[in-house]
């Protein structure tokens, strides 16, 4: 009985935010089989609570990680980021030259106007499934 009540309240809380955290402007760069690409999007958190993106997954590649581009002593590099917190009523852009999702070791070619499915895992919102299309 306790479990049912907990699940009920859990669903109630999740219902309060469903639809209010959304992903927009999603796209990824064209790349061919065996190569890497980057997946970009905007997270719009229109809720009153922070949420955390902690993982991204896709069946199109051997590995998917959240990364950021950094500059050090005039050189550019990329490094993995464990999670990204999206504050209440704010948005975060994953964009070229900044935060991005690294999609590594593609299983197929993704040329112009190809599409792929991605799953974004949020602490509060849960899984958000989206489709993205390649663009240059």
């Amino acid at each position, binding site marked *: 009985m306790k479990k049912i009540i907990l699940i009920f309240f859990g669903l109630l809380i999740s219902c309060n935010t469903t639809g209010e955290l959304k992903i927009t402007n999603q796209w990824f760069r064209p790349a*061919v089989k065996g*190569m890497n690409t980057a997946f970009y999007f905007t997270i719009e958190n229109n809720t009153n609570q922070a949420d955390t993106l902690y993982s991204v997954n896709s069946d199109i590649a*051997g590995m998917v990680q959240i990364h950021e581009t950094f*500059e050090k002593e005039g050189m*550019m*590099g990329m490094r993995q980021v464990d999670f990204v917190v999206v504050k209440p009523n704010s948005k975060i852009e994953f964009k070229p030259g900044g935060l991005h999702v*690294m999609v590594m070791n593609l299983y197929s070619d993704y040329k112009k106007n190809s599409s792929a499915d991605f799953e974004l895992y949020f602490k509060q919102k849960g899984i958000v499934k989206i489709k993205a299309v390649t663009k240059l």
Partner: protein
Amino acid sequence: MLNKMGFKKLSFAIIIAFIFFGCGKDIPVIKDLGKSSYKLIDQDSTKFNFLQDLKGKTVVLSYIYTNCPDICPLTTHNIISIKNKLDNDGITDVEYVEISFDPERDSPSVLKNYAEVRGIKLNNWHFLTGDKKTVFNLLDEVNVRALPGDTTITPKNDTLYYFIHTDRISLIDKQGRLRINFKGSNANKNEIINSIKQIN
């Protein structure tokens, strides 16, 4: 003696002359690469001597590795925009060169795929790779650095590595002189276009 009207006309002429002829002399020479000779291969596996095969041409030069998902494609796409603008302006006698600092993975066919997936026409655009030592000697000469960074092991046990690298677009004039360097991924495209027009 110049009257007021004559002085105005003279000032106007000086300004116009400065705009058309004066600016081109403002880009200093960083390094003379005119005698540089690095035996590389292009995306078609054709032998390519850098810089001897580019003599007499203005060169837009950049440095990439094709496994780079974010920074290097930005540089390439900036050059695509620059080339499109120059082509539209009727400036077609410019050569575009991208040198891979990851020659072990960036074979000619990989470079060709990188170009084709972006719709790059390769008539005056060359993707170059080659022997690692030769490539890095060339990079040393133009003061470009590329250091292997983090390594990732995929669930299928594939090893992936990235580079921490100089982010640059360089311009070389018709005399083979390195004239100016710009940021590659975050390029000021108009500034680069104006500089190309000045040195071309």
